[in-house]
């Protein structure tokens, strides 16, 4: 078994210093904003995520190694190009894990934590799940192990990928050079991903390479005319870390236990967040459709613009 460092653990001191730097920059320029309780919640969620990750790592690593040792088609070794290939394939797997993390309620229950802040700054990057292990996300990486890339390399690349994603959680950077914006995930693209404006919902799932969103039709560019408003469609009314970590799981439990049929129970897990048998709640598709109808319903372009901006002006 290859002995590679855990990049995210090594990066923690840099994360702390960069959050501090962004705070000071935001205080001086007004281009970044923090709120003490929100920041504390994000950082506590980050610490909890590290602890829960450490507690469940043995099982995840064990499963990955068992699949690799038992079923791998090739033995690709540990040459430099294997690391490059692993990074690209892991980023591709991340795209689908992340996409399903928004489109399947079971996976959303873990990922929703990351979107639960109404602020968007570097501390938001650290607001991570405590319950990722209880989702099927590891299955999306199985093809990489089956191909013959040793799991340690894949986990190492996943760590680098997460470190990359830290710096894009900021309003302090407007746009990167055009070529960079085309190929890579940037603060601008990721602001759209974190926005709850109806027109921005369910977009820009990329980790590092933006090309996946462009290929699979989920790319939406940031529009200066509609500034991003961050958070959930229905924001949390609490900073309590336990409620933040578990609220969607509790919601699923209630729905599944009260469902009338087995089909409904399964769909409460596998359908998009907001799905109900009677349509009494709204999925992101329904929210977007309703917003389009409202916007189209205003006859003059000025009124349509006003209707669109009601979602962004409020805070």
């Amino acid at each position, binding site marked *: 078994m290859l002995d590679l460092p855990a990049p995210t*653990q090594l990066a*923690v001191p840099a994360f*702390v210093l960069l*959050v*501090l730097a962004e*705070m*000071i920059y*935001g*205080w001086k320029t007004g281009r970044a*904003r*923090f*709120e*003490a*309780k*929100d*920041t*504390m919640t994000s*950082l*506590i969620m980050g*610490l909890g995520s*590290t*602890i829960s990750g*450490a507690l469940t790592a043995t099982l995840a690593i064990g499963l990955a190694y068992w699949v690799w040792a038992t079923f791998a088609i090739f033995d690709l070794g540990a040459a430099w190009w294997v690391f490059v290939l692993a990074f690209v394939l892991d980023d591709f797997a991340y795209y689908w894990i992340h996409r399903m993390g928004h489109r399947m309620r079971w996976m959303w229950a873990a990922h929703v934590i990351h979107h639960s802040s*109404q*602020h968007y700054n570097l*501390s938001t990057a650290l607001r991570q799940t405590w319950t990722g292990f209880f989702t099927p996300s590891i299955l999306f990486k199985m093809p990489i192990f089956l191909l013959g890339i040793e799991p340690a390399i894949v986990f190492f690349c996943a760590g680098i990928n997460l470190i990359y994603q830290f710096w894009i959680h900021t309003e302090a950077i407007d746009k990167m050079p055009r070529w960079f914006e085309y190929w890579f995930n940037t603060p601008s693209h990721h602001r759209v991903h974190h926005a709850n404006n109806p027109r921005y919902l369910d977009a820009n799932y990329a980790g590092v390479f933006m090309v996946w969103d462009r290929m699979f039709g989920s790319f939406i560019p940031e529009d200066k005319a509609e500034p991003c408003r961050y*958070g959930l469609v*229905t*924001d*949390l*009314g*609490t*900073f309590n870390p336990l*409620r933040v970590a*578990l*609220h969607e799981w*509790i*919601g699923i439990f209630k729905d599944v236990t009260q469902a009338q049929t087995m089909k409904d129970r399964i769909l409460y897990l596998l359908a998009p967040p907001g799905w109900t048998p009677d349509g009494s709640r709204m999925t992101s598709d329904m929210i977007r459709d*309703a*917003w389009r109808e*409202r916007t189209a319903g205003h006859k003059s372009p000025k009124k349509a613009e006003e209707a669109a901006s*009601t*979602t962004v*002006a*409020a*805070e």
Partner: protein
Amino acid sequence: MDLAQIAGSLTAILVLSAIAFWLFPNRRKLSNERLLRNVQRYCPDVAFGEDDLKVFIDDKTESAVVVFPNNKDGLALITALGDRVVVRHITDPKALKIIPSRKGITIADADFTQPKIKFVLGDTEKENLLAILNYAGDPGDHAHA
């Protein structure tokens, strides 16, 4: 991850939060205008004019209740969360648990993400809020009340 790392992380969390508190003090208040903008955002399909609403704001806890003119639209519970505003649209006000106490009124909902909203009120304000909540729970058509 060992105990020293956890202790170091907790220290960093406290220091960063304290710096955020110091550099970004929350001076925003739950004004009527801010409240209505957020109610409109959370309840986009509810038609209302500002004058049709019954609004109750508690400045101490920065919590509010807005009762919509049409009975079927119910009410909105609003609370400031740090420097942001969170709204819950309650279509069935009777499902809310209203708990009066010596210090005010607590409104509890079966909502894990916002279980309670507290209002710190004097006797007259308490009566006013209870009247608004009773009005919201009244099956009559508010638009013609």
